[in-house]
C-alpha cells in the first residue's frame, strides 16, 4: 500500500473582465485510487503580481491580461461603482 499526495489546478475560470479564478485540488491516493480530495480557491485581477502563482495559471493570466484588459480594469476601478 502506497500513499501519494498530488496538487493540481483542476479549474481555471476567466471572467469577462479578465479576472482569473482558479481552484487547486489536493488529492490523496492509495495505490493510485483517490481516497481524499480537498479544494482551495484563489482569484487574481488584471495586472496583479503573479509571484508564487502556479505556472499554468500564470500562463493563462499572461495570455488574457493584454494591455487593453488591464487598462479597462483600472478604468473600472477608478469609477468606484458602489452597490
Amino acid at each position, binding site marked *: 500500500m502506497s500513499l501519494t499526495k498530488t496538487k493540481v489546478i*483542476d*479549474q481555471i*475560470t476567466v*471572467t*469577462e*473582465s*479578465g*479576472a482569473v*479564478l482558479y*481552484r487547486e*485540488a489536493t488529492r490523496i491516493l492509495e*495505490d493510485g*485510487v*483517490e*481516497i*481524499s*480530495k*480537498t*479544494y*482551495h*480557491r*484563489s*482569484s*487574481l*485581477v488584471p*495586472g*496583479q*503580481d503573479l509571484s508564487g502563482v502556479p505556472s499554468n495559471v500564470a500562463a493563462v493570466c499572461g495570455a488574457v491580461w493584454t494591455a487593453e484588459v488591464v487598462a479597462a*480594469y*483600472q478604468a*473600472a*476601478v*477608478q469609477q*468606484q*461603482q*458602489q*452597490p
Partner: protein
Amino acid sequence: MTTKISSLPTLATVTATTVIPVVDSGATKRVTAAALATYITGTVASSVTAPAGSNNHVQYNNSGAFGATSNFTWENGTTLGVGGLGSPSTYGDGAYGFVAYGGSTANTRGHISLGGNNTTADEAMGKIHFFNSNSTNAIYRVCAIQAIRGADNNSGHLVFQTANSGAPSEVFRLSATGAAVLRGGTVGATGVGIAFPSTQVSSSNANTLDDYEEGTWTPSDVSGAFLTYTGSSGFYIKTGRVVHAYAEFRFPSNSDGNSARFSLPIPVYSSYGGGGSLNYFYNGSGPPNTVLVPSPQQWNGIPTCTLVAWSGSSGVSNAFCSLYIFRIFISYYSET
C-alpha cells in the same frame, strides 16, 4: 391437448404357450382389440389431470402429481419459474420472464446469484443488461446494472449505466463504503454521502440539486490597489446556488482611497447577490466607530465583497480599513 396416461396398464400373465387368435392371415398379422384385451388388466384413463397450463409446458414435480405448484415450470415456452409456483407468468407484468420464489425465511427466499473470478479492482463480477430491439432485429443496449470488484476480494461497487445516445455508460454508483456517486463524481469516494461531479453540470430544473462543493480559499484585495492582506484565510460551502463563505484577514497599513473590496470564492449572481455579517472588526487600538456590512456582488465581472458603511450605501475606503482585522461570514446566491 395430448392425452396423458395417469397409470400404466399391466399385462395379464402370458406364457410361451398362450395363443392369441389371429384374425388376418395375410402378410400382415393382426389380432383384435377384444382378443388382446383379454390379456390386459387395468384401465386406460379416458381423461386425465392436466399439468399446470397446457401441453407446451415443461414441469418438474417430484411428487408425481400434475397441476398445482411445481419447483420448476417452463410455461408456454416464455416464462421460467423456479420455486413453489403455479403459473409463473402471473407473477410479473408480462408473460416473458423468470420468476424465483421461495419461502418466508432468509435462506429460502427467491434469489439470483451472479459472480465472477476477479482479481483486479473495477472488474465486472456480474451484469444485467436491458436492451431494445426493433423490427429489423437491431439490438440497442440502453441500460445495465453491474457489480464491480472493489479494492479487495470481498468488496464491491454497484454501478448503474444508462444511454442517452449510443452505448450505456456509468451514471450512478453505490460505492463499497456507501457513498452515492453521481456521473462525474469521484468514483473512489469514501464515507457515506452524495458525491457530485468535481465540475458542476448545471440543471435548468428548479427542483434539481446539481452541485455541492466545500473548500478553503484565500480572500484577496480586488480594489485595484493591489494590497496584500495578512493572515488571509477562509472556507466556503456551495450547495446548489447558495454559497456560505467565511473570510479572515487584516488590511495592511495604507492610505489608499479606493473602496475596500475583497475577492469571493464563487462568482455571484448579478450585481447584488446576498449579504452577511461582520463578526469582528478591530485594529488593535480600540473598537471601530462605524458599523460595516459586507456586500457580495459581481463587480466589474469579479466576485467581490464590498465593505459598506451601515449608515449609507457608500463603501468605505482601504485607508479606513487600514490595519483592521476582519472576520466576516457571508451568504450569497451564485451565478450557477
